[in-house]
């Protein structure tokens, strides 16, 4: 139990930034560039860690609270979630709701920290972030409804248990729809193309990046590290649905989990390479459409 918990924490804390590196390398490969080293995110975090913090005169303690919450929440949320076959150490009936609402807590404080700067650009980013999250959250819940129908409990351990392998046979259509929907949620929540572009140079079109314009040094480092952790935690939900394999061997399970995350990073990199960014006005339409697809999945599984 303790070994598993420690192993899970190490996997999360140590390998999360690697996913960003893999995504960047995939995109570079598609563009025919050599690209930055896979370990570049680590060097970036280290650089930010050593820098000083620039503090705007309009800001208050809320500005500091945003990054702190943003980095703590994914770690706590990961304790509720089975990472691959490594069961969650903190598991109780209804922990799936806590999982969803923890990320809402992080969103509250990052958006508030953005508004704390008094910059209209950051206000815009915060507004977009909460707007899109509003439309993405029901999809996530509908996905969990499908999983709840297939499982016999309301813990994440039960929802994402090994029974999923058999469930693909009986309710494969629903599960496939939900995987696609959750993939959309993952891309929105983690500010990836086609919904948001972390590398754009125009503040007016950004969503997530514009919220953290004023954060610098270790604060920005915490935010970026938190974003990497969040990507891995949400990715773990999808990969567990796609790869519900339990070998029984701790180290083999950890290897399968990491392999799954690697594949997911490559998939995200591919999506980012082959798709153009959506216009902002289109994003809500896509999200509402995704919700409806998820409703279909629920109807299919309830029938």
């Amino acid at each position, binding site marked *: 139990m303790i070994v598993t918990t420690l192993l899970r924490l190490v996997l999360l804390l140590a390998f999360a930034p690697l996913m960003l590196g893999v995504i960047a390398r995939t995109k570079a490969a598609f563009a025919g560039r050599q690209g930055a080293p896979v370990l570049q995110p680590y060097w970036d975090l280290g650089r930010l860690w050593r820098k000083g913090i620039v503090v705007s005169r309009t800001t208050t303690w809320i500005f500091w609270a945003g990054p702190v919450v943003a980095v703590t929440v994914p770690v706590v949320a990961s304790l509720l979630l089975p990472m691959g076959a490594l069961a969650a150490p903190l598991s109780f009936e209804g922990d799936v709701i806590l999982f969803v609402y923890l990320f809402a807590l992080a969103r509250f404080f990052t958006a508030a920290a953005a508004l*704390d700067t008094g910059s209209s650009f950051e206000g815009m980013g915060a507004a977009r972030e909460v707007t899109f999250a509003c439309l993405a959250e029901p999809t996530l819940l509908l996905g969990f409804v499908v999983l709840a129908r297939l499982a016999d409990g309301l813990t994440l351990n039960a929802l994402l248990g090994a029974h999923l392998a058999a469930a693909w046979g009986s309710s494969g259509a629903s599960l496939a729809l939900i995987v696609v929907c959750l993939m959309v949620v993952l891309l929105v929540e983690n500010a990836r193309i086609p919904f948001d572009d972390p590398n754009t140079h125009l503040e007016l079109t950004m969503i997530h990046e514009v919220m953290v314009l004023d954060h610098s040094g270790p604060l920005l480092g915490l935010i970026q590290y938190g974003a990497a952790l969040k990507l891995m935690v949400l990715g773990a939900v999808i990969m567990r649905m796609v790869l519900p394999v339990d070998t029984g061997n701790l180290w083999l399970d950890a290897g399968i989990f990491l392999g799954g995350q690697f594949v997911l990073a490559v998939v995200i990199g591919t999506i980012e390479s082959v798709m153009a960014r959506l216009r902002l006005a289109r994003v809500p339409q896509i999200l509402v459409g995704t919700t409806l697809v998820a409703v279909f999945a629920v109807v299919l599984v309830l029938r």
Partner: protein
Amino acid sequence: MPLLLIAALLMAVSGAPGLARASARRRRGADAVQPAGDAGTERVATALLLAGAILGIVAVVAGLLGRGPHSVSASWAVPGGLFELRLDALSSVFILPVMLVVAAGAMYGPGYRPVREGARHGAGFRFFYGLAAGALPVLLTAQGTLLFLAAWEILALCGFFLVSTDDDQPAVRRAGYLYLVSTHTATLALLGMFALLGGGDPWLRLPAAGSLPAGGAATAVFSLGLLGFGLKAGLVPLHVWLPSAHAAAPTHASALLSGLMIKIGVYGLMRLISFYAEVPAWWGWTLLGAGALSAVAGVSLALAQHDIKRLLAYHSVENIGIIVMGLGLATLGRAAGAPALVALGLGGALLHVINHGLFKALLFLAAGSAIRASGTRELERMGGLLRRQPWTAVFFLIGAVAICGLPPLNGFVSEWLIYRAALTAAHHQIMGLALAVLAAPALAVVGGLALACFVKVFGVVFLGSPRENSPTTSAEATRGMRSAMALLAAGCVGIGLAPLALAPLLRAATAEWAPAIAAAGAIAAEGVSGGLREAAWLSAAAGLLLVPMLVIAAWLRRRGRIAARGVPTWGCAFAAPAPRAQYTASSFADGLVSTFAPGRSLERTSPPALFPAPARVLSHHPDLALDRLLLPGWRLTARLFVRVRAVLHNGLTSAYLLYVALTLLVLLIIFGGK
């Protein structure tokens, strides 16, 4: 129970000395028309309210521990009068927040409406505040319908006087009138409901839980009850009176109205359903649908507001919706014999009753403090208050996080229970019941919208820099106001961190609500006890969340090197952004409002000129039910009756004689045979 009666009496008479003194002074001609009261009687009122609240809490706790008599009765020489009060767990759930919120309001009042500033109708306001506070516990424990309705009417009238305290403003008078009409429509519906319940005689003892058979007049009783109690609770589309009334009242009265008074509608619905031995499933579906509609419509309309008190009032509609969703799930569970649904749904609804009382009152009090400091209720004129009011800001933040249902505060615990009730439905093989699982995504929409709304309010009011130079001198709230907010905030945090403390109360109340299921032992076996025991895990998760945050924050504080402090916010290469250029509340909410609550009307007055000239834009968001449906409908009806009257009232005596003759003839035909 006698203790509770004493507490209620203390609170009810708390404002009487002030009122007597004020009217005596007016007779002498000291105060011209608006008796403001004086500091001495204000202190008396505060002390009496606080004493009453403390006694009330003692009474509730003693009742839960089984000490002392549970009921008190007296002779009442009124036809059909039955003066009997009984304190059970279901009543205790509703009385507990009453005591806390009234105590907070008593501490808050003197700082918010100081006597020396000659607050309008000060003495009368305090009298009706105390009377309302005293009538609430009586209503919540009344055993006879006459006593119930009497307390109901006292509350309704107190509410009217509280709403129209500042009656020099036309908007306040209009709000008070609308409230009065609505509340009496509710009373009428209740009178009909009690008459049907008693088989023609409305003055009876309230039936015991699970004692009435289904069928008969049950459908009509439920429909009338839904109308009457739903009007009081503010269920969409019966909420039309609520936003304007709660925005018009002075802030701590708004807290009482929004946090406590509308709950008596919920209480009535719960009691009414508990009377029946078996309930049809469509009651549950109706409640679930009405709750979901109220929750989504309430929060969408809240998002569209830019008056902070109106916004909070619309959030009451949302939270009532969440409570009724929980009640609907529990009713469905009773109809289908699913104890887990009953336990989790009703447990969540009851806990949300307590929680909403606490955090909504907290939000209103903090908003009142912000309004005092900035001199306006308009969000677009506020900003940067956190620097001037650090304490108020923290209290508002606690209330905001709680009302969004975010961990680790109390709002999350109750929403978590209701979510679990909804998700449990997914495991039922009956397709009909399993559909109730769709309540979960509905709650998710509501949660997301509420979060957007409160990020907006907190950000626009307390963060950034001030949008206008605010006129008032005093910034931070007085000590009394701060302690009032601290009391409520402590309640929010306490329930969030240790929800298990309330488990016995909720368990007992659920058992009283559904005695048949409780008797079968099912609730103890799989429902409430198991469902609430899980809440201990929430405490653990909250600890896991808070401790690392504090460690990281402390680390940043010690080790974080500040490279530059006091520099301007980066304006994306724009060098001189004015505070007015900050993102506004309307812009923030625009995307969501146009999706979820379309219909904003924009009124532009810009002079047609070659060169830019000052222009005005007024945005108003109409309430679909009131402004688009009811008011035009009433206007149409009024015009119709004018038309009819013009034909009938033609001034010819012979025509009037014809009416009399025709009426007599019709009556003879109908009743002549008997």
